């Protein structure tokens, strides 16, 4: 019984992790603006990587390999927000504008009245 639960957890983690990765990749290709693309890329770095590494750790059990997996996960958790912050800060300080992001958001949410989004 325990083995079946563990096997199911491994499947769930790996499949959901790769699904989140693919969704983030589609977002990086299709998003209209640089800053929204950075958001989509962050999704793959957090949920995708976490779930895949968690699935691998469940498969290996508690030994040196899972310690290494935890180290990889810690490293990704430290470096990927730092990298995203440095990237967006460099883009912002270079003056990269996001002119059409509000229009794109409004079109995606199909908000007809632009006055209502002003205080949100």
């Amino acid at each position, binding site marked *: 019984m325990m083995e079946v639960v563990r096997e199911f957890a491994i499947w769930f983690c790996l*499949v959901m992790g790769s699904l989140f990765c693919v969704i983030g990749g*589609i977002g990086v*290709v299709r998003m209209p603006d640089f800053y929204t693309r950075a958001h989509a890329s962050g999704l793959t*770095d957090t949920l995708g990587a976490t779930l895949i590494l968690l699935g691998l750790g469940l498969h290996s059990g508690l030994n040196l390999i899972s310690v*290494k997996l935890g180290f*990889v996960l810690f490293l990704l958790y430290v470096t990927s927000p730092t*990298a995203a912050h440095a*990237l967006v800060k460099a883009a912002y300080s*270079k003056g990269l504008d996001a002119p059409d992001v509000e229009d794109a958001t409004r079109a995606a949410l199909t908000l007809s009245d632009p006055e209502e989004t002003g205080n949100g």
Partner: protein
Amino acid sequence: MNVFAVAMIGVLTTMLLALVRAFLGPTVFDRVLAANMFGTKTVLLIAVSGFLAGRPEWLDLAILYALMNFIGMIALLRFSEFSNLASDEQVK
């Protein structure tokens, strides 16, 4: 089908999509973003392929790639922001 193969297909698809953005990307920041995402997915790919081949010792390579990816991206950003890699007066 092996579950590691499924995860590997997902990670490879994501790497392909990141490469598409790296080729399309109108600004240099889009390309750097795609390169960073490609590097992160390389770490995951090495980890998953180690489990797929039954040799999880390849995780050391994944750790190395994570470090290299981070340092390379910071260096590239410094270069694109200041047009050189080490300058004292331009650092605030």
